[in-house]
């Protein structure tokens, strides 16, 4: 996944990854990444039909685009 992200970023497009595998993602050095703590594969945006939670996570991910750069790091946040 990070390979895809890095390839898009190399073409001059800012990217942000929502990951559920923070260790693996950090090793692959993403331009920007958000890990909603405790979430697992198939649940990247949290709970089904929880529009408020899913929009919150999306806006947090998008906000990383504007935040000070921390290339290669995975930002961990709690959503409980």
């Amino acid at each position, binding site marked *: 996944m990070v390979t895809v992200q890095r390839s898009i970023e190399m073409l001059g*497009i800012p*990217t*942000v990854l*929502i990951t*559920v595998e923070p260790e693996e993602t950090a090793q692959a050095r993403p331009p920007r990444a958000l890990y909603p703590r405790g979430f697992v594969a198939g649940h990247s945006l949290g709970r089904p039909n929880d529009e408020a939670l899913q929009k919150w996570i999306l806006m947090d991910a998008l906000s990383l685009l504007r935040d000070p750069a921390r290339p290669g790091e995975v930002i961990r946040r709690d959503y409980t």
Partner: protein
Amino acid sequence: MEKPLELSRYCVPFTPFGKTLEESLICLVTTAAVRAKTDTPFNVEGDNTFRKIDGSLTTADLAYDDAHYDHACVDRDLNCVFPVDRLAALAREGRIAGMTAEHFSMGYSQALRELRETTIPQLARAVSAARPDAVVLTGG
């Protein structure tokens, strides 16, 4: 003639984001094997192709083909891995300008060399051609 240099895995490519979110078109890219219901299914055992997903579609128009991640969430709400309805809501609220005319999905594959040398470069160029201001990626 020497081979072109390759980006070290210790180096992080970084493109600054120079716009505001309110004026940005966002593109979704996932590896969760999402596709339009009318499109060709992914091979769940391994598939090195990717699908374009029309940006006007909602999750009601979409399906997934997967045997590798937990489906408890996506069987009720595909936004769990492909939050296209939520992005559309953010656009209606004016928090982003909108979405690109196409989103993109890859499927499951262990053919890493073909992914690296063929599929991913093709996908990245297709994403670039959609002219997003920023891309949000999700896994399975």
